[in-house]
């Protein structure tokens, strides 16, 4: 039965789906590399947090979600936004601070929002969105809507009291939240062992009686399986689940980070587990894709990223007169 359930949750990847996932990972990678470039050119300002190396997590988890599910992320959310279906152009425009951006240019890199895809940020107070996620799931439960809320956060966020309160509330209320920890081993420059006395993060779920699991976040197929299992359980029981994805960020915390806190060799070691070649090799082996296909996809991605920049370049600044607009809702009369 175990076996059967696994299978129904994880049908073998169809060719189209297989390609799409690769496309998504590549899109994140190239989009972010371009973003870094645009940052250097001072087209993008503020904080810019890149997800490079962690792509398998967003891609693997997001495919388990439905359009009606809610998604909440941190400030390291370009990847999630892209996979959730925000157009690269509106994200780039947002980072350019243009009003055609997904948040009218008001938010920048850390605050991507999109009502259409139920993408609730882009939240830059670490762990500040966890309780909101619980509340959204509570609303769904009260309204008897069959949908779940997926909340991404880092392992650093788990030291905040906010994590503790949100987990307890979700468990008490039995609401459908997927608590998705992206454990990339660092919170800025603070390594996991300096953040948590108990470094086996999954154990923290037990303190709230929440079902928990851990997966290799560098392995897309493993993430897909773990996410599908978790999501299926949430949909079935209506209860929260805590999933830890062990991953690594290849680049600095943000563009300001001199990376004094870790050895280059450690980064190089992890790069050997880069999720993109890892997954592509699997596709090669399975004869789902060829090198030629890869090049083709890569070309499409590069074109899409280029178009995003081109679009952002054409976009306009919000008139300064609109500064205070939307501080309060406009009167509906």
């Amino acid at each position, binding site marked *: 039965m175990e076996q059967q359930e696994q299978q129904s949750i994880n049908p073998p990847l169809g060719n189209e789906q297989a390609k799409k996932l690769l496309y998504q990972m590549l899109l994140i990678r190239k989009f972010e590399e371009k973003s870094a470039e645009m940052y250097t050119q001072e087209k993008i300002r503020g904080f810019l947090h890149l997800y490079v190396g962690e792509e398998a997590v967003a891609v693997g988890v997001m495919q388990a979600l439905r359009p009606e599910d809610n998604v909440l992320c941190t400030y390291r959310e370009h990847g999630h936004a892209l996979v959730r279906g925000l157009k690269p152009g509106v994200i780039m425009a947002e980072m350019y601070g243009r009003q055609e951006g997904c948040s009218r240019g008001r938010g920048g890199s850390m605050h991507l929002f999109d009502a259409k895809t139920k993408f609730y*940020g882009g939240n830059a107070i670490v762990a500040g969105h966890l*309780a909101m996620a619980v509340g959204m799931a509570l609303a769904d439960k*009260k*309204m008897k809507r069959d949908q779940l809320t997926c909340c991404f956060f880092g392992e650093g966020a788990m030291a905040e009291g906010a994590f503790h309160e949100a987990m307890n509330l979700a468990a008490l209320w039995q609401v459908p939240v997927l608590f998705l920890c992206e454990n990339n081993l660092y919170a800025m420059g603070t390594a996991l062992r300096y953040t948590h006395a108990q470094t086996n993060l999954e154990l923290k779920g037990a303190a709230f009686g929440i079902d928990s699991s851990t997966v290799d976040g560098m392995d897309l197929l493993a993430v897909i399986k773990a996410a599908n299992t978790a999501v299926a359980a949430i949909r079935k029981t209506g209860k929260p689940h805590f999933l830890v994805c062990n991953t690594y960020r290849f680049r600095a915390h943000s563009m300001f980070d001199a990376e004094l806190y870790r050895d280059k060799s450690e980064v190089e070691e992890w790069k050997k587990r880069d999720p993109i070649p890892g997954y592509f090799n699997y596709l090669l082996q399975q004869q789902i894709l060829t090198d030629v296909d890869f090049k083709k996809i890569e070309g499409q991605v590069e074109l899409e990223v280029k178009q995003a920049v081109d679009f952002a370049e054409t976009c306009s600044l919000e008139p300064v007169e609109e500064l205070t607009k939307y*501080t309060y809702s406009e009167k509906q009369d």
Partner: protein
Amino acid sequence: MPGQLITYRECIKQAIREALQADERVFIMGEDVGRYGGAFAVSKNLLQEFGPERIMDTPLSEAGFVGAGIGAALGGMRPIVEVMTVNFSLLALDQIANNAATLLHMSGGQFNVPLVIRMSSGVGRQLAAQHSHSWEPLFAHLPGLRILSVGTHEDARYMLAPALADPDPVIIFEYTSMLNLEKELPDSAESIEISKAKVRRAGKDISIITYGTGVYKALEAATELAAAGIDAEVVDLRVLRPLDEETIVASVAKTNRAFLVEDASRSVSVSSEVSARIMERCFYDLDAPVQRLCGAEVPIPYPKHLEDASVPQPAQIVTAIKTLLQHA
């Protein structure tokens, strides 16, 4: 039934009951709102009437359940979150300031947060330093919030409905010391605007501008002043953010004098702001400098005589205004 006495507590309770009856999306959540009956018995029996889905007891997790309230509001509900007292509200202030107050603007108008947070504020029960705060000024500083202060039975009874109808986060301050106070409730349920201050007593000699517990104190003082031939106008700010500057300006333009009364401690208070606005808008109308009578700049001590000394008393208002008018 005009003439019937009702407590401030009962006014709040009726408002909540009515809201729960009027809209399925409304629910209350907070510490001890259900089984305990509310820390101040405001929600007594509501659990029995509406059930645990609508009257939700929460654990001690102010940040958590306020955050959840924001999320539930985003999800289409109309939560009334009770933070038992303002003293515990700082634990949730990050949620209020960084999420509730910013989401609409930061998302370019996409996500509004129709949340109401109620909390009990102020001194008056000898609860000492950690349980006697009047933190309205902290909240009144934050853009994106609407801050209401319930200084009368009328507002206790009728302000909740428009607050729930507001598409944006509204914070309602109620006052522990007034819960048992009985007054006549005006008969009409005339629709209350939560954008306007209200002149509670018209007068021509001086404007006493206040809010919260200051309203009845000011009215009491005004009655005494009237006996001394001084006709004071009492302005109840009601809405501490965004301030209704026009009502203030109109009153001071008429009386040419202003006296500000507030329980919160003086520095960087709502009265500071009112004084600054009068400076900006009414300087040439003023016959005398605006004066403030605010809370003492001190953690509130437990003993009655020191607690009384740390907030304005009606007698002080009377004396100060008499002096002010002699002087001018």
